[in-house]
């Protein structure tokens, strides 16, 4: 039982170390450059929605007449 538990622990402790190392290397040398790109689409989506709403309102007003 002790062997089993300790092997599981050793394995996962090594995995923790490897994972930390991996994250460190990745974040240090290959940082993601996506933050600025993420904003604009949201803004245009809102603008589009507004345009569509305006078009619907215009169409509704037109058909009512």
């Amino acid at each position: 039982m002790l062997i089993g538990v300790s092997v599981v622990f050793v394995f996962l402790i090594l995995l923790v170390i490897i994972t930390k190392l991996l994250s460190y290397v990745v974040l240090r040398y290959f940082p993601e450059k996506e933050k600025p790109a993420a904003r604009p689409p949201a803004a245009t989506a809102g603008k589009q929605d507004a345009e569509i709403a305006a078009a619907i309102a215009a169409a509704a007003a037109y058909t009512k007449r």
Partner: protein
Amino acid sequence: MNIGSAFQEFWNSTGIVNFTWGQFIMIIVGLIMIYLAIAKKYEPLLLVTIGFGAILANIPVAEISGPDGFLGIFYTMGIANGLFPLLIFMGVGAMTDFGPMLANPKTLLLGAAAQVGIFAALLGALVLDMLPWISFSLSDAASIGIIGGADGPTAIYVTSQLSIHLLGPIAVAAYSYMSLVPIIQPPIIRAFTTKKERMIKMEQLRHVTQLEKILFPIAALALCIILLPTATPLIGALMFGNLARECGVVERISNTLQNALINIVTIFLGLAVGSRMEAASFLSFETLGILALGLAAFAIGTMTGILLAKIMNKVSRESINPIIGAAGVSAVPMAARVASKVGQEENPQNFLLMHAMGPNVAGVLGSAVAAGVLLAVVPIMMGG
């Protein structure tokens, strides 16, 4: 041949004449499983299929679970050789987001702590073996212990390799306890934590980049290849599925793994597991022992997960809510949901779900590693 004897022959081949009491009881058990799945929504995907498999397997005369019956064919096709659990694991890999774990790698340790239940139940099975009316070999004990991993496919895989004759009861115990997580865990969590600890808030997890997520499955598999090759069937299948998910260029494979493939295999696996619930092998003292040990393994795993989380909370700089330790017994994502629910009962502003997903997916790795250890050690000890 006169009409009378022809009628007699027909009568002798009906279900009524050929029923044994055991078969009748097992059909009732199958119906109860289906009832629990439909009315209580306990793991319906598995309980409906296993329950129906159990009914089919206990029909007299038809021999559906015999070597030539269709359930028997499913069984030799993918359970006896351990194929189906591995296919399921690919799907699990494709459905798993290791992100929360990568953001906070310490939580991997909680996934290890919760596996103590496996080895405690193993010892328990060897103790029960001393009783005159129960007999468990070491490999039986190992297969029973793995129920504590709270991971159905892993339990079936290990049992198929070590002691196939116990497959029915072990699979049923594993899946029933997984579905009972919301009932079993909260009292244990409350017993081992104080109100103040349960109210601890945790910092928000950092963003994990795609490159990290792509490299992790490869790194984890590499470690497994070096240290524990016996765990590579399970870990390899899991990491293949996960890489397909994260790499972003094989969307179709990833979708198939997490939907079509896992569903098809679940049908085959459930029915074939149900077919092992034949009265002759299922209605025994061993089954009772397995059910009791499985529950103990689960409870101990939950407890050790919480205790380690408490220690980590004391030692580490940032605070760790001990509740998330309970999620270390895989049972994805049920255990994480339970942890988050218990946390919110104390403090409605506390959102632990993502924090609990870390130990939760670590638990899947932990039980696969524990399975690898058992598969490596037990055959040697049995031989020597």
